[in-house]
């Protein structure tokens, strides 16, 4: 399998604070890769660097064999930020249509993709409502729909299931598996352990470093325990 995202020796600091310390990461195409770690561990910074919204002080990032940042690359990445970046005075549909036209989708493709993305996140009935009247979970779902709007090859989702009820979370994961089967690569950050279980590969992040990585089964085997939560504690503890 070829690598879709390659991170070489990336370090980043804000002022004196070192946020990422020599991160090396390899995301193979067609898999769901989970970045797991507590808040403040540097996951979001790493994700931003991969998208090209932030630049590392050291090291480089390649996505689809292209050095980041690259404008054309953005067309192929679906990004969902941690904060819901939506226009609250517009309707859900207008938000989707706006981003669709930024990705240069034509009218027919726009309609098709809006219907698909809205259906996926179960928002079809609420498309005509203004986003300011949406609940927290609905906004999260709309953000996910925006990330899917241009049918990207890579999905980079920063805590996508925060504030989403278990039922919908399950249906979103089912869809992520479908997308994966369709050949898409998905990088997801989370701090919920049971979601980590669902990833093909995992990297545990703490204090700006990757403390361990591998498939969930491998990790459990390596540390001879049954739950990932314990792996996390153990791996984290080893560093101290």
């Amino acid at each position, binding site marked *: 399998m070829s690598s879709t995202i390659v991170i070489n020796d990336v370090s980043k600091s804000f002022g004196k604070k070192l946020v990422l310390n020599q991160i090396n990461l390899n995301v193979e195409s067609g898999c769901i890769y989970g970045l797991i770690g507590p808040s403040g561990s540097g996951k979001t910074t790493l994700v931003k660097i991969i998208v090209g919204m932030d630049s590392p002080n050291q090291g480089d990032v390649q996505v689809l064999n292209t050095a980041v940042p690259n404008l054309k690359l*953005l067309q192929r990445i679906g990004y969902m930020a941690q904060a819901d*970046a939506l226009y609250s*005075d*517009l309707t859900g549909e*207008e938000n989707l249509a706006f*981003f669709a*036209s930024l990705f*240069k989708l034509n009218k027919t493709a726009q309609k098709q993709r809006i219907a698909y993305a809205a259906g996926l996140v179960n928002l079809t009935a609420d498309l005509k409502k203004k986003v300011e009247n949406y609940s927290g979970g609905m906004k999260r779902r709309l953000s996910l729909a925006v990330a899917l709007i241009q049918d990207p090859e890579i999905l980079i989702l920063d805590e996508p299931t925060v504030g989403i009820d278990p039922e919908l979370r399950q249906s979103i994961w089912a869809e992520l598996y479908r997308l994966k089967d369709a050949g898409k690569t998905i990088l997801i950050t989370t701090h919920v352990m049971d979601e980590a279980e669902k990833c093909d590969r995992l990297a545990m992040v703490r204090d700006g470093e990757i403390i361990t990585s591998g498939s969930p089964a491998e990790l459990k085997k390596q540390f001879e325990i049954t739950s990932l939560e314990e792996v996390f504690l153990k791996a984290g503890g080893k560093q101290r």
Partner: protein
Amino acid sequence: MSILALVKRIFHQMLRDKRALALMMVAPLLVLTLLNYLLAGNAVDPRLGVIDADDKLVERLKDNDIIVLQVEENTKDILLDRDLDGILEFAGEEISLTLTNDQPNAAKALQVKVQQAIAAEKAKEQATNLSTFMETIQSKLPGVPVKMEQVNAPEINTSYLYGNQDTIFFDQLSPILVGFFVFFFVFLISGIALLRERTTGTLERLLATPILRREIVFGYLMGYGLFAVIQTIIVVTYAIKVLDITLVGSFWNVVIINLTLALVALSLGILLSAFANSEFQMMQFIPIAIIPQVFFAGIFPFESMAGWMQVLAKCMPMYYGGSALVGVMYKGLGLSDIRNDLFVLLGFALVFIVLNIVALKKYRKI
């Protein structure tokens, strides 16, 4: 394509935000109307108390639109109780004038009127004395005709290069105000709009799409620029048709100037929004970046400013906007006369636009 998507979005947002729309379109009309009536109000005739004044002088004072009252003594109590603007007291050769001076402008005007009246009265007295003197000489020298030509007060025919005898301060002020409102409201609305994009994270989200940084800046300029055009047309039409403000030059030249001003305000607004973290901080730019512009827009004459103030004035976009607007609306200048002002304004806009495009690098390096 991306620019058009942005313009379309801004339209959706603006048309839905009725308050912002009203602020932009109706608020300037309200302020203009208020100022129009405030400045057009007729001056109240001053009230002057007199002590031992000559009847002829009193008549003359009355002719000069002064309400004259006979008072007994020159005291503060009388001044205040009888609601007087001044007391003129004659004691032999000595004349003293006490002014309330609660409104220095009105007091100065009263002082001038009184002085004129006294001088005129004295001149008339002198003339009478002189002719009596001549008559006496003539009666003593019969046979020798001594002729004295009657001197009539010469009439001055006044003509005006700009405006006419009915022009008031508001006629000169209104072009500046029309431009300033466009500048102010466009600055505020566009600045806050981009600020909101920064704080809600949508700007970052926007930059995670393949949109170019300059497309964002131009999208904003076009989207809000169109509203600025509509605002300009409404404000100028209202000022001319309803408030009957002088417009000597072309209506379309006024629109062109205001549009250029709006471009400067837009690019300045979105640039300054980069240095604000909240709407309140955006407001804090108003006393620094906006209010001083009014002072240099032509309300105070440029020639009377100190040297360093003149330099400061030349750094203010409103200085050029004001001068061009007064030029077209009041003096009737054509496009070629205000060309230089327009070029300087476009220069300001260009600098701000480039700075904006560079400032967006904070979010995305390319």
